């Protein structure tokens, strides 16, 4: 019989799980990707070594950059670490701080982080960093309607816009899983996640070609611990998005229903397994499709938008 944990400890554990395991997820994806390409690949812990190495290096700022240039990585990481408080990471029941923000609140935090990084990139005066941030802002404006319609679907399904409520709805019966609105919204969200984590449309995820970069280019002028923070931040964002997809939309099973130590530990293992599974699917997709040309990104966004809009339509007629 294991001891019951206080809810505050579980709350902290949610953030810690995301914070500590995000580089591991990135490492798993890199490993799977390398295997698919017939390479041996880096070890799974490589992202941790990269972060440690970057944070030992000297930090430099371009001449004329204001304090915001150095503050932005910290703001971004703080925003990313706040999101796990709002979404079901380990538990199926809401934790004390879980209801301080809804899906839109989480979305605002993610955009705040992206805004801080983009502004810091503008501070540098470097053309590549500015190109990256301007592209990132433009394309996130294109995918924004998709996210909105996914939120509408959630709102119509549950009557709220709380991630915990949707997870509970999906768990409640098999009918909720096969209903078209749920499947369409999940697929649309998955496409947005592919785009947001730089996986399919135009960006080479770990590429060094500046013209193909979107998000990666924004960190060009940062160095040392600040660069480490930005890298960690994008790993955090990836893991958070995977968690939302797996724990809220696709597979909200395996979450701890009680405060027992054992079930919470099991939930951590389940979350890592789910994130690794999503990562494998993403790696397969990333490896089996050609990158699109930059201007074809609207087609990708239009396809995702189609899925999300159909999700809302089907619900509107009451049958979805």
């Amino acid at each position: 019989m294991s001891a019951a944990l206080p809810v505050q400890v579980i709350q902290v554990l949610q953030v810690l799980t995301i914070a500590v395991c995000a580089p591991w997820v990135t490492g798993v994806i890199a490993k799977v990707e390398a295997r698919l390409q017939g390479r041996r690949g880096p070890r799974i812990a490589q992202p941790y070594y990269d972060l440690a190495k970057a944070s030992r290096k000297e930090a430099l700022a371009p001449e004329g950059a204001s304090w915001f240039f150095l503050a932005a990585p910290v703001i971004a990481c703080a925003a990313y670490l706040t999101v796990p408080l709002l979404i079901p990471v380990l538990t199926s029941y809401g934790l004390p701080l879980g209801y301080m923000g809804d899906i839109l609140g989480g979305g605002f935090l993610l955009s705040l982080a992206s805004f801080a990084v983009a502004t810091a990139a503008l501070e540098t005066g470097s053309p590549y960093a500015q190109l990256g941030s301007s592209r990132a802002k433009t394309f996130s404006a294109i995918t924004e309607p998709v996210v909105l319609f996914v939120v509408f679907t959630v709102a119509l399904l549950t009557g709220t816009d709380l991630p915990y409520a949707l997870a509970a709805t999906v768990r409640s019966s098999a009918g909720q899983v096969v209903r078209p609105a749920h499947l369409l919204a999940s697929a649309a969200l998955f496409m947005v996640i592919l785009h947001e984590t730089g996986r399919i449309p135009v960006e080479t995820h770990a590429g060094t070609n500046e013209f193909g970069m979107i998000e990666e280019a924004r960190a060009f002028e940062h160095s040392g611990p600040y660069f480490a923070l930005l890298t960690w931040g994008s790993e955090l964002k990836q893991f958070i998005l995977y968690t939302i997809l797996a724990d809220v939309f696709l597979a909200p099973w395996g979450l701890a229903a009680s405060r027992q130590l054992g079930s919470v530990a099991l939930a951590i293992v389940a979350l890592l397994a789910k994130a690794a599974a999503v990562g494998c699917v993403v790696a397969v997709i990333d490896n089996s499709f050609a990158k699109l040309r930059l201007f074809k990104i609207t087609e990708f966004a239009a396809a995702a938008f189609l899925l999300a809009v159909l999700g809302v339509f089907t619900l509107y007629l009451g049958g979805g």
Partner: protein
Amino acid sequence: MTNAPGVYQGAANAIAAVMLLLEFGMLRQALARDQVRLYAAQSALISVLAVVIAADRGLPDLYVLAATSAALKVLAVPLLLRRLLRAGGAGDEPAGVAGSYTLSVASAVLAAIGLAAFGFFAFGSLHLHGPAAPPLALAIAGAMVFVAFGLMIVRRDVASQAIGFCTLENAISLAALVVAAGLPLILETAFLFDLLVAVVVFGMLIRAHHARTESLSTADLTRLRG
């Protein structure tokens, strides 16, 4: 929290929704052979839907319909279409099909979303409730009809128009399955063989057009002279 419509209805609705998505896939697909492949997939889904309805409602003749429809629309019609499109002899892909959009792909998809919305709500407001009918699947069939027309309008080639016409038939079969699952088998089969006639007619059209212009694009037809 809205109640889910039950596993059978949910599955039927999901199959119908995937059929609509395949319709959009045909709209944006550049190559005729990929369009034919998507058409075969869509036809396979309608057979699956017939089996689902047959199992749920205990209608044995629907199994026969599903088998006939699969043999005809998943195998025969796509094979025939492929052979017709290859008639030009220029490799696997006939000239004049790829890139025959009148709109950019993203705009075409957005316009088709508008069409689908119109069809969706127009059919939805009919409030038809057949015994086997999830009303949503009927509305999706309505949306498919409009998107199929959209496909025939935004693409400037004969092949897309033939495929658009065939998927129109798929949409109507879907509506028929949903509204009148107990339709006599002989009628359903007669509809299916109508499709064969249509394919033959389109085949003659494609050949005639190809013989005159050496391309399947209809762009040349805008310069008609008296």
